């Protein structure tokens, strides 16, 4: 039996409340930009331990290793590796290249291997970022400031694009619950989102190719950040860090350079615009204490610190540090409360990054049960983008909510 619905996260949670039974589930993804039709790549295993009477489940998530993603080593038989999936494309590409550029077979194999390694690393990074966003992992904050955040009552936080992606403000609030936060979002970050959306749309129209795996890195910028900005606006006093028009002209987009013209200092120019915006803000308002730049970019943090701007750098945990997996609940010593991530939230967030995510039951008497969450479903209208609706399809005997 199959059932498809267009749902918000809240509707997904209420309608498919008790469909995840204890047992082992595999989480897979399909992305039409870099995978052939109907091909799913495993992201990891979810061990559901217990379900409460309300149907909420506690689970361990064990991400697939990078090595296994790349070449399938030491993995369950049904988990395809990028090597297997891209084999036919690599062979085809190799043949053409060989004819055109007389490249040696070794060089072609080496290039293909490098791409697979990069892709596996990218997928792992995106998984870690997703788990941070979901609160299952937490960053360690490195704060460069003469005064401690523990002693402050108020803080103005300027969030750069990276920290908007990984939900830094939520983690700051958890680790410094006494702080009254004022959020500032740089106009440059918002312009970058617009740029990303346009760039991704044009790339997504072409046929699948393995190199398009790099889209995974930029996709959260187009899918997650708008939702995050909305959430920040609803929960904190928020303003935009504007720039003088003459500075804004220096903004660099993501267009590829033509011929020999490269896009040289795009990142550093945009970072510079944010730093100048912060200095302007401090000058205009006569403040410096309590104004922090939250940036996930090490170089930018270092540079800002040199220029006298207080910085907060969220140091990300590495998935390899969690060989036993990551548990869905956490206890915060700071707030004295439990935090919890539902399976629904996990699938929802992964679908924002990986386009289509599938949870498939491997045992527990529910063999054949599976559930797909699809972000880019074909008939998605503007309202559905704004409401963050996705297509949820349930298969199998236990699929009825």
């Amino acid at each position: 039996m199959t059932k498809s619905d267009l749902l918000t996260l809240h509707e997904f949670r209420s309608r498919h409340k008790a469909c995840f039974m204890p047992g082992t589930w595999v989480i897979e993804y399909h992305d039409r930009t870099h995978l052939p039709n109907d091909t799913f790549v495993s992201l990891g295993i979810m061990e559901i331990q217990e379900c409460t009477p309300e149907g909420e489940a506690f689970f361990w998530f064990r991400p697939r290793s990078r090595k296994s993603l790349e070449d399938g080593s030491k993995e369950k038989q049904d988990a395809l590796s990028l090597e297997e999936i891209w084999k036919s494309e690599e062979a085809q590409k190799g043949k053409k290249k060989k004819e055109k550029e007389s490249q040696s077979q070794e060089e072609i194999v080496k290039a293909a291997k490098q791409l697979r390694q990069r892709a596996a690393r990218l997928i792992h990074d995106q998984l870690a970022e997703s788990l941070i966003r979901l609160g299952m992992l937490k960053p360690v904050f490195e704060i460069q400031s003469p005064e401690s955040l523990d002693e402050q009552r108020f803080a103005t936080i300027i969030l750069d694009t990276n920290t908007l992606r990984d939900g830094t403000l939520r983690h700051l609030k958890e680790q410094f619950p006494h702080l009254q936060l004022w959020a500032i979002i740089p106009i440059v970050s918002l312009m970058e989102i617009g740029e990303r959306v346009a760039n991704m749309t044009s790339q997504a129209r072409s046929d699948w190719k393995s190199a398009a795996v790099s889209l995974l890195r930029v996709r959260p910028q187009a899918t997650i950040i708008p939702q995050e900005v909305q959430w920040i606006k609803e929960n904190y006093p928020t303003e935009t860090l504007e720039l003088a028009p003459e500075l804004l002209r220096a903004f660099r987009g993501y267009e590829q350079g033509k011929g020999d013209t490269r896009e040289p200092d795009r990142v550093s120019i945009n970072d510079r615009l944010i730093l100048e915006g912060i200095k302007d803000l401090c000058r205009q308002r006569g403040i410096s204490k309590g104004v922090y730049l939250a940036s996930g970019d090490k170089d930018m943090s270092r540079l800002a610190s040199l220029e006298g701007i207080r910085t907060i750098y969220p140091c990300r945990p590495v998935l390899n540090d969690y060989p036993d997996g990551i548990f869905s609940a956490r206890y915060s010593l700071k707030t004295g409360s439990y935090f919890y991530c539902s399976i629904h939230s996990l699938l929802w967030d992964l679908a924002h990054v990986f386009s289509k995510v599938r949870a498939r039951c491997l045992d527990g008497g529910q063999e054949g049960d599976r559930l797909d969450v699809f972000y880019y479903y074909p008939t998605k209208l503007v309202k559905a983008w704004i409401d963050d609706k996705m297509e949820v399809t349930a298969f199998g005997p236990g699929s009825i909510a």
Partner: protein
Amino acid sequence: MIIRILKGSTQDDADSGEEETIEVEAIDLSRTTAYEEVTKPPLTMPAVKLLAKNVGPIEPFDPGEPDSYYARNVGVTDWRDGIGPPMDIPHYIGLRVVLESILDKYGESDFLVKIG
């Protein structure tokens, strides 16, 4: 349930004072297999690590018997939504995540942990 984080790596050191006291509502130690061990003198960090890994229900867990096995109506924050209805957390899961957060903060240092 009260957990005390004690300064020092020996019982004598630990008598010198507490670092932190954590009060956790709704965890009943008598419903976890850790019960016997945690009533003994303070645990070292490696022992806390082992306990966090192995803590489980004292009897096979039965979701159909919520009054016997659950910490009822514990306020839980859903990270994504920020709100959360009170949930029923099994005692051993509650204890385990608390121990993990202690390890997260004190795991690398010489501290003792007293649970009771």
